């Protein structure tokens, strides 16, 4: 038990929680925005992979870190436009289109990576974002090193939660987005163009997913390798349900999830030899499934989620 207390009392754990949560926050907010407008975006897993690859590749080729993030965002937006084209304009099955976008963007990023970066024993690296200590706050005992010495994208993720929460619930634009997700025909009667709203949300949301992916290669690690996203995208889709489609709860969900992930990682070293390490690695996925079972009945799903909108057709 002492070991567990030691783990919980280490600032390293809490610092890792924020680090692990960051890509999940970006991804969950992106998926949440799409779903608020009525579009399920299962392209997330592949879009995060592409963002991780292309952001890293840009920096590897001499761009500065923020340009890398921007490139990732633009590419994510492009895949979002593809998904919107399939699901909004053509009104195709959002499940299958999303999976298609994931298969395409993931395999495409592996292809480009293999093509442009030759195989080598040691993976090539870039100089990633460095932690920035917030003056004053970072000097606080325990809390300082745990919470206030993160990289800039992590701070950005927290700010984004507040901005998106405000946008969705306090602005006319947010109202239009929510109406489109609940009843696009009613929204149209109010002078909102559901097609424009859905396109905008899917493109912007996909850009956020790609930024989340780029965090993996430009901040959490410093190199790219295939399958590095490891189901984080699917976990984000589960977190959206857990968050009941609210940005603030998305932050809570991502932090909770990241806490268990960071905790299991440290527990592995304590219990190595007693419990196979695979058991610990399963925990995040099983937790997500459990969270879904726990929340699904209570959550109020946007009513027009997964329903295509065609003018004059109901």
């Amino acid at each position: 038990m002492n070991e567990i207390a030691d783990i919980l009392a280490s600032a390293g754990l809490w610092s890792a929680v924020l680090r692990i949560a960051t890509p999940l926050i970006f991804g969950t907010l992106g998926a949440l925005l799409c779903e608020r407008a009525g579009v399920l975006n299962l392209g997330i897993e592949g879009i995060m992979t592409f963002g991780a690859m292309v952001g890293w590749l840009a920096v590897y080729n001499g761009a500065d870190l923020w340009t890398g993030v921007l490139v990732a965002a633009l590419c994510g937006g492009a895949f979002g436009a593809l998904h919107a084209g399939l699901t909004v304009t053509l009104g195709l099955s959002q499940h299958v289109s999303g999976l298609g976008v994931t298969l395409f963007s993931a395999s495409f990023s592996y292809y480009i990576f293999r093509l442009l970066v030759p195989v080598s024993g040691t993976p090539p690296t870039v100089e990633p974002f460095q932690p920035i200590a917030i003056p004053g706050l970072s000097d606080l005992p325990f809390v300082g090193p745990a919470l206030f010495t993160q990289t800039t994208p992590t701070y950005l993720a927290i700010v984004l939660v507040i901005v998106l929460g405000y946008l969705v619930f306090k602005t006319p634009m947010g109202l239009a987005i929510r109406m489109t997700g609940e009843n696009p025909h009613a929204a149209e009667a109010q002078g909102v163009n559901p097609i424009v709203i859905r396109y905008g949300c899917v493109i912007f949301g996909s850009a956020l997913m790609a930024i989340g992916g780029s965090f993996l290669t430009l901040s959490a690690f410093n190199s790219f390798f295939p399958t590095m996203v490891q189901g984080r995208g699917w976990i984000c889709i589960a977190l959206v349900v857990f968050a009941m489609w609210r940005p603030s709860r998305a932050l809570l969900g991502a932090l909770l999830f990241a806490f268990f992930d960071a905790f299991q990682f440290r527990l592995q070293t304590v219990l190595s030899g007693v419990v196979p390490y695979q058991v610990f690695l399963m925990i995040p996925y099983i937790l997500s499934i459990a969270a879904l079972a726990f929340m699904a009945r209570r959550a109020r799903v946007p009513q027009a989620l997964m329903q295509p909108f065609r003018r004059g057709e109901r």
Partner: protein
Amino acid sequence: MRFERREQRSTLMVFAPPLLAVGVSLMLSGVLIALAGAPILEAFGALLNGAFGSRLAITETLTRTAPLILTGLAAATAFRAKLWNIGAEGQLYLGAIVVAAVSSQVLGGLPGYVQIPLLLVAGSVAGMVLLLVPLWMRLRFSVDEVVTTLLLNFVAILFVSMLIDTVLKDPLAFGWPQSVPVADEAMLPRIVSRSRLHVGLLIGILLALVIYFIQSRTVFGIQSRAAGFNASAAKFAGVPLKKTLVLVAMISGGAAGLAGAIEVMGVQGYVTTELSPSFGYSGIVVAMLANLNPIGVIFSALFIAAMFVGADGMSRAMGIPTYIADVTVALSLLSMLVAVFFTQYRVRK
């Protein structure tokens, strides 16, 4: 510009979309091959040669087709009833490891004609169980099965990884993480000598025919289609929704589990975590290219297998990353979706 639903669809429109999709995806990947700086025609020549150019190439492509037919059927049967089983990859692995466990620990010395059928059943049941869990969660807690089946893929592969690291570890594999081998008697007979092609291919084709018959000629087949088409209307018409979905899940998960079983018993003889080069996910593309038709699945599985085997050959010859196959397969899925759309709708100004 707007889209208007077509009243009638000619027979041409049934066969055109998959051919169009394959053509468009090959054209787009031609662009990517050109980007890699390779001559396009030669590259496609190398692809074709790699997939069908020799006796070995043909048997390898057909060996790869077998599990893809089964995972394709897994997706096709489930999607038809709007049961979104994206978990074929995990179901395949669970089927595989159960076969290895049962053969090595329980059925050991039994003769092949007893052991093989029992193992095939065991593998299928394992796949079924792994799909029945998310289905139960959907029916009990209304949890969307897309995410749960996706997440269970990771759990299943980690579970397999754990077993081949511990209780099912092969002590003779020099510390390499692989499972104990299945008994020699459990290996599936070869169809063609001096090749890896095994009867798993025939099992896949037979199952496709059986499922086709079930879907077109039985009450359950109609009910599963109705459940997918309009669940509330089906319920109103007296379709037992839960029972139908459970049966669909058993067929779907069973087919995916069977894919794992035949890969172990036909090709490898043991389980590693690299058993499946994403057969489960490719099965979704197989099903969509076939427009969810079980007979069509046989042909689309052949196409996808040829892409993967051919791309290996092309990659060796031209230095193009093998991932070109995955890109082409994904593009064929997206093209297929669009092509099918235009068989259902026409564009009006």
